[in-house]
């Protein structure tokens, strides 16, 4: 704390993180729509929505200690809720709220069975995965006119190609790609800041305490089941928001529920580092760009790359990239100045 402007000090301060993220967001909003071609802009919007998705699991798994193999269920539900509501209401503002509300309600129901049944991590992962697979199957089987909610056809494996684009409240003009990009960037920044803030509150600390030692937290009087359920619902709402952004940059389709979607988000968190927020987002961007480039080249099946990345990280870099880099940084600055020794120890923990 004596020298707040050294690199390790900045690395540790939550305020500095938020400030840096704000600068990056503003810079991106100002520069990118001018500089980048339309195709790149839409692609980056897609990556931003995935970044929000990555944050939802980073919060739930990294801080809540709840391994959800089916995070894509909430992602897909949010997108479908948005599309169906927007088609029926003819207005997108309320529909956008539905995109967060519906997954949250679904998560509350599912979470009740999971957490109040006191299922541990393996069972939890398996049930969430199974729910996702069933939803995927269910949505895929909704082809034809019989399957509709109000005036919205669910469309089976075709999805809903006529997903309405977001408009400003009380307006009928859809957002331009540049505006959509700005919205996605602000959403990512907002969710990041929200997560940082949430973790600093009493509630957030209690959630982390449950992750560290559930029994001890309960003996100290915290209601571990309710805390887990709450963070599960919050994470589902964030995933729904990600689904909303995704739906606006592509369109709504059953692949959002798919296993590869669920696997991808997990890989981002593993690669970025469990118990960090920035790492998963960075890993998400990097891996998205990597797999897109590979897909264009068409030499290697993207599944092979994702599989190898996951195995290699789990076996050889179990902490993920961000903690590994933070350690490296701390060690470098410690070797430069003997006074920095305490910092190094703190980061290594």
């Amino acid at each position, binding site marked *: 704390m004596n020298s707040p402007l050294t690199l390790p000090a900045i690395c540790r301060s939550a305020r500095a993180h938020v400030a840096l993220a704000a600068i990056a967001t503003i810079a991106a909003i100002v520069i990118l729509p001018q500089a980048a071609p339309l195709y790149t802009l839409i692609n980056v919007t897609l990556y931003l929505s995935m970044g929000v998705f990555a944050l939802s699991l980073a919060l739930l798994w990294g801080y809540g200690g709840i*391994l959800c*193999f089916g995070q894509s269920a909430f992602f897909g539900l949010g997108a479908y809720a948005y599309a169906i509501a927007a088609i029926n209401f003819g207005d997108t503002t309320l529909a956008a709220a539905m995109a967060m509300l519906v997954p949250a309600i679904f998560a509350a129901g599912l979470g009740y*069975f999971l957490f*109040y*049944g*006191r*299922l541990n*991590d*393996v*069972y939890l*992962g*398996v*049930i969430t*995965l*199974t*729910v996702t*697979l*069933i939803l995927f*199957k*269910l949505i895929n*089987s909704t082809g034809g006119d019989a399957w509709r909610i109000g005036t919205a056809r669910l469309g089976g494996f075709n999805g809903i190609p006529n997903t309405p684009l977001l408009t400003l409240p009380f307006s009928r003009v859809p957002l331009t790609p540049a505006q959509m990009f700005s919205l996605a960037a602000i959403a990512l920044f907002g969710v990041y800041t929200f997560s940082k803030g949430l973790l600093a509150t009493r509630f957030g600390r209690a959630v982390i305490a449950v992750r560290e030692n559930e029994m001890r937290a309960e003996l100290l009087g915290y209601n571990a089941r309710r805390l887990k359920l709450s963070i599960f619902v919050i994470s589902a709402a964030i995933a729904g928001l990600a689904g909303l952004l995704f739906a606006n940059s592509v369109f709504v389709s059953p692949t959002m529920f798919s*296993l*590869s979607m669920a*696997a991808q988000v*997990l*890989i981002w968190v*593993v690669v970025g580092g469990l118990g960090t927020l920035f790492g998963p987002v960075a890993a998400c961007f990097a891996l998205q760009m990597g797999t897109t480039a590979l897909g264009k080249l068409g030499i*290697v*099946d*993207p*599944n*092979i*790359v*994702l*599989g*190898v*990345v*996951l*195995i290699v990280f*789990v*076996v050889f870099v*179990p902490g993920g990239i961000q903690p590994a880099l933070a350690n490296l940084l701390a060690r470098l600055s410690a070797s430069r100045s003997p006074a920095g020794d305490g910092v190094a120890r703190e980061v290594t923990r």
Partner: protein
Amino acid sequence: MDYFLVVLFQIVGTVGNLALISVGLAVIFGMMRVINLAHGEFIMLGGFAAIFSTQAGINIWIAMLVVAPLSVALLGVVVERLIMRRLYGRMVDTMLASWGLSLLLIGLATTFFGNRVVGIAAPVGSFRVGGYSLGAYDFVLTGVAAVVFAGGYLLLRMTRAGLIARATMQNREMASSLGIEPSRVYAVTFAIGAGLSGLAGGLLAPISGVLPTMGVAYVAKAFITVITGGASVVTGTALSAALLGSINTISTFLTTPVVGDVALLLAATIFLRLLPTGITGRIFKGAP
């Protein structure tokens, strides 16, 4: 009356099917407390092994019952050596690594075998009950499942190897201090589990066809069956397959196959709320 018989046959067929696709997973889970997420891909590779060896001129029964399990068991040995061995004691990491393996195997199969369905004809025909025609192959599946479960029960109950396996399952440290090497037990278990998944894949190849991404379809049902069954490999899996298979078939008959699957999941979820450790966590405790 005929209709009732048909439903009954269907239930038996579904139960056998469910038991068969779950048993490989159950063996690995029961022994190591690890969910092998590449289970579906082991089934897929068993299917490919059966089809390719049939096409190469090997008798279809040998291809399904011998070649498929052996080749996947061999893969299991390699996987255990290269990946799983490094991760024992890190349960969640093992699951993640096996999911990575699942993606890798899907990718490799798509690259080398192509993303299309290949199949072989079922070696037995159909028979009639009143006005209905039923596939006799379902009985082959159920029969093999019954043999596997009976064999597993006897193996665990009567032999020395079974005793060692049960000892390691119950208390790893104690078994280890009595001179049993857990890592060897685990390696053998993983190979047997993989082999049983391969057997399921080989037997399913004639009725479902084989596709690189087919594993996904089985993985969920197998998981649900195994965790509903609880800690006992043979008894638990058999009981939960019987329970969930019946629920699935009956609701499929009443509505559609998709609703049948949803009913299976719903029943399992509510069931786990009531009995969080599965059927054999409360009832039939200690059975192998």
